């Protein structure tokens, strides 16, 4: 085969030489015809350099995009060998250079993609059809840092970076089995972002994988800058304020969910990976829950769920009770409320909206400003504005406590996206509470419930295990049972292999004094 190839090459070279003899020496002639080059020549970082091999006196040329190529690789690992070695034909490049990824090709249409992927195009004088690609990518990657959004006191401290390869490396190291499949797709007509879909063969349900693959393939968009674009583009219901795919910056979490039988989606250029299918309760479980004893983590999960309910409902209940149902409040408590509200000129709804908006403003300002200024604003705004508005008689101090607690409670949501949703949810509840009191709160709750019931994540019910009710999946939902009881994978994932480990081995019962 190789011999044949060489023979054919030799013929080509001879032909070319014959032609060149008649047409005279034009060093650039053999490259000028291509369209891609014309466009590239406009950019200043497109470079072409010519060299002459010292032994055979053949001219060769490097074409590359200097901003994408690590020139030290060219200088140290390619150029000396090409200048000093015996370079007579293009296939010699492979044996001359000590770089693994060298490809000889005759596909003109590949050139553009390869150049933009950081390859160097090598063309040789007298060689019209064939050329070589030398891999010399420049990788600008920031260091692996501590997870900031999903910080945990205990447990691994590495988080994803913007390079897909580095991220995949961190996952592969945690799941070193051949069954871990990484499928790669290119998305975005301009960004050409690499999207990797990860799953474990033999565990993950193929329907889930196919759904993800199909939806990723169907994406029509020009510039994908982050995985958040992918979330919005492939969600089941794009008009829902609820995130339907979980995002994480922790490689350890990705490894854990792959073992459960879920699918992970990583996007090049994004430090956040996506997880699907997911459920509502998963958004309230922090990954640190798995690092703590199950009693502690179950308690914290319950606290978080309570915090969410509290955060959404408490201000609407205040408005409803004080606007309509003051009979609800016992005598002693009522007198406290009345004392605090005696001087307030505003009705409860305006009072509540005023404070809620203040908190929202503080949050937005804190998030947009640099960290240090943000902290100052938080303290100044929180304490000064809060105290001042109570002293000015604009809001009651009871409501101030309630709103501040509600804001605090909404921060306990471990997933940032869900926290934002909860921020938003409070306002329709407030509106209905003003309209119909307690009844309004229940009506808006019914709307919320109906919406959640309709939601799916990659076609799997979003409210599982609450509805459809599956008792066995409660082992890792609102509470987390010990690992010895997590011998089966979650039911709703319909995994190909539902057993995580043998139940019998895990349950060894001992009698007293044995």
């Amino acid at each position, binding site marked *: 085969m190789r011999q044949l190839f060489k023979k054919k090459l030799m013929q080509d070279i001879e032909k070319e030489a014959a032609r060149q003899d008649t047409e005279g020496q034009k060093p650039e002639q053999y490259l000028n015809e291509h369209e891609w080059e014309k466009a590239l020549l406009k950019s200043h970082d497109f470079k072409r350099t010519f060299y002459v091999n010292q032994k055979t006196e053949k001219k060769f040329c490097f074409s590359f995009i200097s901003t994408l190529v690590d020139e030290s690789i060219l200088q140290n690992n390619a150029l000396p060998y090409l200048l000093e070695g015996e370079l007579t034909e293009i296939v010699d490049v492979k044996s001359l250079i000590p770089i693994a990824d060298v490809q000889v090709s005759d596909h003109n249409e590949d050139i553009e993609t390869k150049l933009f992927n950081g390859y160097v195009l090598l063309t040789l004088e007298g060689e019209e059809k064939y050329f070589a690609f030398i891999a010399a990518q420049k990788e600008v990657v920031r260091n692996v840092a501590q997870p900031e959004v999903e910080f945990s006191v205990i447990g691994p401290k590495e988080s994803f970076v913007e390079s897909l390869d580095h991220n995949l490396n961190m996952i592969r190291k945690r799941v070193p089995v051949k069954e871990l499949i990484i499928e790669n797709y290119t998305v975005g007509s301009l960004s050409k972002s690499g999207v990797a879909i990860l799953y474990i063969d033999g565990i993950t349900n193929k329907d889930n994988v196919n759904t993800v693959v199909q939806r990723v393939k169907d994406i029509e968009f020009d510039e994908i800058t982050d995985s958040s674009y992918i979330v919005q583009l492939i969600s089941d219901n794009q008009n829902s304020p609820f995130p339907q795919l979980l995002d994480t910056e922790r490689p350890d979490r990705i490894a854990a969910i792959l073992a459960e039988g879920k699918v992970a989606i990583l996007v090049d250029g994004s430090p956040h990976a996506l997880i699907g299918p997911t459920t509502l309760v998963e958004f309230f479980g922090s990954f640190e829950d798995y690092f703590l004893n199950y009693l502690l983590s179950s308690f914290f999960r319950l606290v978080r769920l309570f915090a969410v309910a509290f955060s959404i409902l408490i201000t609407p209940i205040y408005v409803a009770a004080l606007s*309509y149902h003051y009979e609800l409040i*016992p005598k002693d*408590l009522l007198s406290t409320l009345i004392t605090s509200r005696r001087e307030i000129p505003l009705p409860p709804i305006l009072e509540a909206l005023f404070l809620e908006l203040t908190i929202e403003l503080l949050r937005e300002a804190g998030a947009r400003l640099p960290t240090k200024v943000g902290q100052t604003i938080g303290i100044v705004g929180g304490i000064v504005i809060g105290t001042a508005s109570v002293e000015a008689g604009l809001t009651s101090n009871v409501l101030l406590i309630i709103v501040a607690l509600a804001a605090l409670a909404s921060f306990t949501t471990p997933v940032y996206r869900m926290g934002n949703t909860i921020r938003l949810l409070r306002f329709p509840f407030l509106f209905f509470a003003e309209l*119909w*009191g307690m*009844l309004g709160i*229940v009506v808006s*709750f019914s709307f919320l419930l109906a919406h959640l019931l309709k939601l799916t994540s990659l076609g799997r019910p979003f409210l599982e295990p609450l509805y*459809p*009710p599956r008792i066995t999946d409660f082992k890792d939902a609102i509470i987390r049972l010990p690992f010895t009881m997590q011998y089966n994978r979650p039911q709703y994932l319909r995994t190909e292999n539902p057993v995580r480990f043998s139940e019998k081995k895990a349950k060894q019962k001992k009698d007293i004094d044995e």
Partner: protein
Amino acid sequence: MQQPVPERLQVSPFLVLYLIMSMQIGIGVLGYQRIIAKDAGYDAWISVLAAGLSIHIIIWMIYKICGTVEGDIVAANAYVFGKKIGNVISSVFIFYLLIFALAVLRTFIEVIQVWMFPEISTFWYSLVFLLLSVYIVFGGFRTVTGIAFFCIVLPSYLLLTFGFALKYAEYRNLLPIFDHSLKEFATSAYNMSLTYIGFEIPLFFYPFIKDAPKSQKWAHLGVFLTTIIYTVLAIITFTYFSEAQLAKSIWATLEMWKIVSMPFVERFEYIGIANWNLIILPNICIALWGGSMILKRAYKLRQKKGVILLALICLVAVSFFDTRAKINLLNDWTAKIGFAVTYVYIPILFIATLIAKKVKNKNEN
């Protein structure tokens, strides 16, 4: 025999428990105690129990009918009476479900108007409520079942609040037992109709249950639980109220909440009534879903259009019932039609199905 429903649209058999309970518990339970005590006095709890037990026979018949024709009420009517007459009879069920939804919605709004907001607009509240129901029905039967499930589970804590009345219970009120004639017991049981109806819904969603025959035990369990709840609630009410006082209490269940008091909540009925919103939600949703399903099966009307049509009729009709007397009349008629459908029509259909099956088998042989 009808086209089988694809599995992704079906629900698990045990959810029938919640569907039946959520359809049965609605507005009747808010004030049935006075109505049943009119005839059988404080022996009426026995009628509640007896009426509840008799339902199991009807449930058994419903599952026999649906099992024989392997389909819903439209299929059963078509099986027995032929397609044309069958469809006409099925249309009566649309009317029944519609009037059921109407009665539930209007009575609940009346409760709100009497107990919470005297000025609340019937129209606007119905509009929001029906919008919510249409939104739910648009999600399909699985969503409707989900609502039925949550609307039983979430407000179930309300049962505990009736415990507060036990502190003031006078058990001697119940004595002597069996102090009334059989006829009085029967009338009293008949008066439970409005409170009990709703258990006939397997006729509408039978094909939407996975392994439908297996769901029969859950249907029985659902009816049994409802019966227990009603009986216990009746006994608590009878021990709490004196007979003369009960005769004046239109909504005895609500009045019992007045005694509830906790360190952070007084006048519990506000919370209770607001929560009752959840309990009547599946009533309306299942009725709208069932009605639009029959429209689709019998008249090939797209279900999306059918739901909106039925909701619109409900919205228009609800404004006509503006006085206590009219609402009472509506409830009476709903109870009568409900009784006729469940205790008269279903046994007839059951026998007719058996005969039709024999005749068809003979013809085949």
